[in-house]
């Protein structure tokens, strides 16, 4: 399976998805008004991956900021993870960013995938 790599830009985060190397990372900030086109290949990649996943999948989310529209896309991504056995989300946030920590906790309540919170 081809890895998916999208470098970060002014309004969009960086994506690193690699099945062989077991890297699953979204990092940076998302301010884009209409995030659907941006996240489309990511969702597609995950769908394909879910048909033949690794025994364990750890998706690392390391956001500085994301807007409301992006939150919707994130939820869609996590919903796919729900269908993959052995998946986990590592939610990384700046140590003093309470907002980011709490938003992660709220998201964790909306999906059944286990969350791990890591301040950095």
């Amino acid at each position, binding site marked *: 399976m081809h890895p998916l790599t999208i470098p970060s830009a002014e309004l969009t985060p960086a994506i690193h998805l690699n099945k062989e190397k077991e890297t699953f990372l979204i990092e940076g900030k998302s301010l884009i008004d209409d995030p659907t086109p941006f996240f489309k290949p990511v969702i597609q990649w995950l769908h394909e991956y879910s048909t033949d996943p690794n025994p364990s999948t750890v998706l690392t989310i390391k*956001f500085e900021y994301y807007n409301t*529209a*992006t*939150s919707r896309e994130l939820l869609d991504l996590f919903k796919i993870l729900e269908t993959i056995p052995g998946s986990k989300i590592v939610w990384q946030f700046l140590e003093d960013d309470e*907002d980011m920590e709490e*938003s992660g906790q709220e998201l964790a309540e*909306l999906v059944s995938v286990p969350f791990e919170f890591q301040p950095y």
Partner: protein
Amino acid sequence: MSEEILKALTQLFAIITKQDGGVSENERQFVIDFFQQELEKSAIEGYLQLYDTISGYTEQQTKHVDDRSNKLTSVKDSIKTLAICKKINKTLTQKQKVVVLIKLLELVSSDKHFTPQRMEIVNTVSTVFNIAQEEYKLIEAFVTSDQVGTLNYADILIADEGTQSTTPIQKHIHAHVAGHLIFMRVSSVSMFFAKYIGEDANNLNGFIMKPSRVYLFSHGSTIKTPDGAALYYSDLVADFNNEIHTTKLSFIANVDEYKFGNGVIGIRDVKIAEGPGKLIGIMGASGAGKTTLLNILAGLEKPGKGKIKVNGFDIHKDKKKVEGVIGFVSQDDLLIEELTVYQNLYYNAKLCFAQLKEEEIHKLVMKVLEDLGLEQRKDLKVGGVLDKQISGGQRKRLNIALELIREPAILFLDEPTSGLSSRDSENVIDLLKELSLKGKLIFVVIHQPSSDIYKMFDKMVIMDTGGYPTFYGNPVEAVTYFKKATHQVDSNRGQCEVCGNVNPEQIFNIIEAKVVDEYGQPSNKRKVTPMQWHEMFKSNFKASRVEDIHEQPPRSLHIPSRIKQTIIFTTRDFLAKLSNKQYLLINLLEAPLLATLLAFVIKYKSAPGGKEYIFRYNENIPAFMLMAIIVALFMGLTVSAEEIIRDRKILKRESFLNLSWNSYLQSKLIILFLLSAIQTFTFVLIGNLILEIHGMTWAFWLVLFTTSCFANVIGLNVSSAFNSAVTVYVMIPLLLIPQMILSGLLFDFDKLNELLSTKGKVPVVADLMTSRWAYEAMAVHQFKNNEFQKHYYDYERDESIADFKSAYLADELKRKNQLLLDFLEAKSDSIQKRISVNKNILYTELRNERFREGIENLNLTEVFIKNGYTKEIGLLLDSYFENYKKYYQKQYNKSAALIEKKMAFYESQGFNIQQEKNHYYNESLADLVKNTTTKDRILEYNGALIQIINPVFQSPKPGHRADYRTAFFLPEKNLMGILVDTYIFNLLVIWGMTLFFYLTLYFELLKKGVSILSKFNISLKK
């Protein structure tokens, strides 16, 4: 709205308004207004506090921060919004979600503070709510914009003083409105919203419309301008709807008068003119003639004076042109209870659409089921009153579906909501409303509608006792009209100011108000009589005009060929019968049970010593055969007697399709004959097995099957003529007892009332009985063709003829001749009479006689007819009869010897003659068909000698070519000059009778006869 949802909404409001600089006073006021609408006063405080906390309003107040700079939405708020929307998604319907979205947009636009952050949140909410992006854009534009020119959407309609729309695709109507009234259709949920931009105080359902506020424009709503112009929901919907404009339909009814059968006037002076896309209600007190009016409009009843025209075609005269255009859903269930929901619809579709392929029909049926919310129930049996499998609402919807599937342009429904819960009622009317929006014209008789249902109608026809129309127009206005007419206060308010409810009961309270006597008790006299209401109606309402269209009305009917119809009817009926386990079980077990019972009871140790059972000596065999025939008749009648009665309702519905009556009847016959075949076969099989009747299975079966088929057709005749199953079952003895009386076994045909009987022949009345033909066929066939008798029958026949002639006839003729000789000279009248009778007898007997030795040269005509009888001839004849007797004695001996020889031959071949006879031959039956018990072997009757003994060995002596009549049990019959075996002849007779009664059934002669009789009764009463 639940507490949970209200809490969620409050949070949403707060999150949105806290973005980009916090809450403004206007926005907070909007939220308070919203709470005031939804909550009682005491609860508002709590929710407002929640709002203030989350939105940061409290902080704003204390810290006096007025930082209106653009800050990014916090990620926490984003996720919170998401969580709230997900929660709302789980509880609210799509319609409610649209309302929530509009509320959010209104909140934002209350202060016109449209920042990207706020709009982004609202947009996200709409996406999570699964509202299409285009629709969101439409809603956003409608709520936020005050500029008519910017609203370039096909789902926007502007009503103002202008003459045309300001943008290319937006719709426009001209109305006397200061400013603009803007309407929006959200087509995914079929909802309409209204908004007013301007200075006037317009009135929506009795409330003042605040400018720039969005209002739900629900079913039955009306907007009135101060000038008095009114915009009705129904008109507006029509303006939005293209389909209505493309449907070419006009329905014009002028019913001047309709009289019931007893002469009472049922309906007077009703004029209705409607186009496509209308839902019309018919209301009235009980007995006002609502159903009658509906039946007349649908063409089920013919008005005495007046015409009903669809697109200019008279529905009674140009039946062909309007075929399939009208649909009718009666108050009764018109379902086939034994079939599943799917099957009911499927076979109905098959009968309507001959041109569609199997797959297309399946798709169509599934689509209709889905539209009506029945797809989950599709494999459930409909069930009867006692074993209901689907609910009343579902039954009703299925009834409607049966008519909907063929998409009639005009649909009539008689009380489709009676007996339904208010929820189900609303669903049904919702469905009808939707259909009307697709361009159908729908008439509904409705009783005690709820406010919501009442408002959904586009027009209401209100009838008063005696068939007087008293109102025809907008439903809500009916209330104000009647209030005004009786000078009530508050008369220009049709609906409740607070809740928007209309109370249709009010109308009837006013119409039927009674005069109060001096003690305050309401009397029987009405304040306003139906006639007065009608006069008022005539002076207040002018018949509206409808564009009279003169092209073929739209229709989609393709009726299959007759043969295909037969196949469809048959499979449908067959499946219905198969699924009715009780019916099937009873009908299939009935015959074997009766056969076992009967055969068991009449089987006894019949051998001469009483040691064992031997078929030959069973004296009950003749009676068994009669019972078998009665059983066949009985089963045939009972199985068919209810058939048409049960289907009558379904036939009524299908009468709109003009299906073939012949095909229907044939399908009935196919199934009934099949059932009869099975029943009679099992009966014969078991009966014959137990009683050890050998080699007769197929022969008996064919007779019984034929008899049963005849009974089937008789049963169908009765079933088509009478209107209750009870009457039909009471008829059964009336049909069966004569069959028993005149079967020929219970009562000897020669010993019946002189009015009926002819000696030596079966009476004509008995010839009308199937039982007699069937019995004769069975008895003669068993006797003549059983394995034992068939080898000797011909010899025995010769033997019997010779025996009769030598032993009885020779002496008798000799005596007759002696009388002639003795009284040759006598002149007295009485003797002359005897003489001429005797001459006649001698003439007939001798003319057909083969043995002529000694009288070869005698001219019989000369001697007996032309007075040529002399003493010489008399003496010659006397000696001839001596020879005659001797000759036939010899013949008899010859035949007897031949029989013995043949028996000896068979014995030498290893046959045990006695055993064979025990096996196949029955003594009682032989006695019966040989008539050995009779006292008189020979009888003189009407100037002829009649042989009474041995009918089964006689030959018919037809008087003319078409003379079929003979004595009972003759082995052959005359069929137009050809001798036909009795078995075959009798079967042909029964099938002939069956055909005859099929024709009476086809032309419904019995039904017509019965209806003439019942009319006669009524006129007697008067």
